[in-house]
């Protein structure tokens, strides 16, 4: 099976869908001729023409607002916001318009759009190229929010997202674009070509939205993670020797609560990890849900390991980032409880 980077897998998903469905259009800042600052759309304009893949003015609200109009017309826009940090001008369009169009019009109009955005840190990007705003989307009724952690899932999830009849926010952990980063910035980068999940099937396949996956089975505790933190959690478990069961959520909303419940009932302990800030982060929702549904199975308080409640710093990036050392300490503390 061919091995691909996450960027190649994402590009492949758009390529497959543009080939299969003439209504799929792709646009955003630097997306057309150049192929995107992360190269996700490289070659698509040459292959499908300028009206299927094109550059836009630097206006995130324009990109999403136009996509909503196109979706209402009957197209399937898959648009790129260059960095998730730049999405705020589009937030009104996403929250008040895309998310509610089906509901408020009683199905008269729908919004089958995908908004792709590179998310997360670890690239020396400072506070405007590193944010993880997923909780700002999961809090909104009417959206679906997806965060892949590897090339194979990324392609299948993006195909599902483009085929989905409702708006999907597709957050791409940019530190994972070129390899399964485990949170050790000082070690050589492992490329996806050396990782089994870098094996990406050709052609069309789906990874369903709303289904988590257990990526490491274990009995000592459950670690709930998504995106980059899946690999950090794997490293932390290996380095501490804690027999953690690690769940990769893949989709935050709709959430696969059943998979989390089954694991926590088995292990009795739960650690939640994300790169985003702590307060009102998605971990708070996960923690509440686990407490509500697994309280009598819990043998220790639910623990959250996250980014600190500060803007994402530049010089102190690795003090901010919840890497394997910090997560490992948390795993060992939970073990002792």
């Amino acid at each position, binding site marked *: 099976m061919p091995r691909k980077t996450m960027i190649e897998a994402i590009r492949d998903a758009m390529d497959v869908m543009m080939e299969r469905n003439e209504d799929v259009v792709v646009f955003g800042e630097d997306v057309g001729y150049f192929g995107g600052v992360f190269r996700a759309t490289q070659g698509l304009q040459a292959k499908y023409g300028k009206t299927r893949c094109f550059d836009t003015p630097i*206006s995130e609200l324009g990109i999403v*607002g136009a996509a909503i109009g196109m979706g209402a017309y009957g*197209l399937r826009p898959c648009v790129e916001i260059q960095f998730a940090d730049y999405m705020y001008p589009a937030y*009104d369009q996403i929250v008040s*318009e895309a998310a509610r169009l*089906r509901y408020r019009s*009683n199905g008269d109009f729908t919004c089958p759009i995908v908004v792709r955005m590179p998310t997360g840190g670890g690239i020396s990007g400072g506070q405007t190229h590193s944010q993880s705003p997923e909780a700002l989307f999961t809090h909104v009724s009417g959206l679906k929010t997806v965060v892949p952690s590897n090339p194979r899932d990324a392609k299948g999830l993006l195909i599902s997202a483009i085929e989905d009849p409702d708006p999907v926010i597709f957050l791409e952990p940019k530190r994972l674009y070129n390899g399964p980063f485990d949170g050790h910035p000082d070690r050589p980068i492992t490329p996806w070509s050396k990782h089994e999940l870098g094996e990406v099937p050709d052609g069309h396949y789906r990874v369903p939205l709303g289904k988590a996956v257990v990526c490491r089975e274990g009995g000592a505790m459950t670690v709930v993670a998504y995106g980059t933190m899946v690999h950090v959690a794997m490293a932390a478990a290996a380095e501490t020797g804690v027999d953690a069961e690690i769940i990769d959520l893949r989709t935050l909303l*709709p959430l696969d*609560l059943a998979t989390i419940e089954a694991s926590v009932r088995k292990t009795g302990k739960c650690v939640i990890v994300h790169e985003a800030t702590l307060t009102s982060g998605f971990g708070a929702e996960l923690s509440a849900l686990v407490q509500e549904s697994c309280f009598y199975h819990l043998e220790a308080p639910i623990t959250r390991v996250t980014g600190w409640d500060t803007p994402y710093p530049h010089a102190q990036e690795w003090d901010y980032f919840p890497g394997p050392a910090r997560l490992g300490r948390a795993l060992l503390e939970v073990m002792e409880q």
Partner: protein
Amino acid sequence: MAEHAVLTLHIPEPAVRPGGLPDFSSVRIPEAGSVPRPNIDADPSSIRDLAFSIIRVLNREGEAVGPWAGLLSDEELLEGLRHMMTLRTFDARMLMAQRQGKTSFYMQHMGEEAVSCAFRKALQPGDMNFPTYRQAGLLIADGYPLVDMMCQIYSNEKDPLKGRQLSVLYSSKKHGFFSLSGNLATQYIQAVGWAMASAIKNDTKIAVGWIGDGSTAESDFHAALVFASTYKAPVVLNIVNNQWAISTFQGIARGGSGTFAARGLGFGIPSLRVDGNDYLAVHAVAKWAIERARGNLGPTLIEHVTYRVGAHSTSDDPAAYRPKTESDAWPLGDPVIRLKNHLIQRGAWSEERHKQAEAEILDTVIAAQKEAESHGTLHSGARPSVRDMFEGLYAEMPPHLRRQRQQAGV
């Protein structure tokens, strides 16, 4: 070093406030028929004057004059008059219904009826409007049932939107009326996107965006003009300048620009101002812009110069921020009376027939109201189910909503 005076901040003020005498002397009104009608493929830079004038067809004598006249037959004009009278009567009844507690909120069109009623008649089936809350004439002039509009206003059991939307935020794809948001300006750029999609698919349909004078200040307006200009989208972008954004006079949003239409010039978009109280002028300008869009000549910006006679909504009292008699002083008159006088002048109408039509329309609207109220009003009678609250958010209900619906006991 040279000494400078201290800086001072400029806060624009309307000409008059409550207690003063209305003053529209600053509104320059050109003679009807005096503004030329360019070809639809005219170079935008050659027609920049149109952004600073006002295209008018009906003169003081009720005659249709000049190069923009002569497009509509007696029958079409009589139909237009009926649409405007229906909208006005509909508004009066719904305003009263709100006062009677049958709904929470209403917004009337008084003085602005020509804008949406005339524009609709220049469109073709399949074209899509992205309206604001004061263009219900688009629905009425397209034959959308009054009963359905009222059921939406009452949020009753027959509400096409299942009680999910505030009153007057209608939606009808069939009638080319995009779901109303309630957030201002967001739909302007969506109209451009819809138009771009039509062009991508080599379709023949066009889109129409609507915005008020106040909300042109939103970034969405700028984004819409940039996108429309860049991609030459087949879209007509309307600004309804009714002088007031709730209590804020139009000068606050307009700033130092001479007119709202002038905003389009920097984008190379042909930009026209039209007498929004002149049914014939609105229709003629709409037709010109729509032909441009359909002819693949790109976007047009139209500023409809009109006046909001009533309150912004049922939640404000204009006497608190403008002179009570200001609407009487508005120099462009009343759109219904002006079209009526024109039809009488043409020999196609009379005062008697007008009175008779008023009575007939009132009967029709009251009959529709009775029927709508038989399906309930906001606080009494039949209403949408609680189950409807949970449904239709996604194509397929996700597990967490299913759980919440069960918790709610439905």
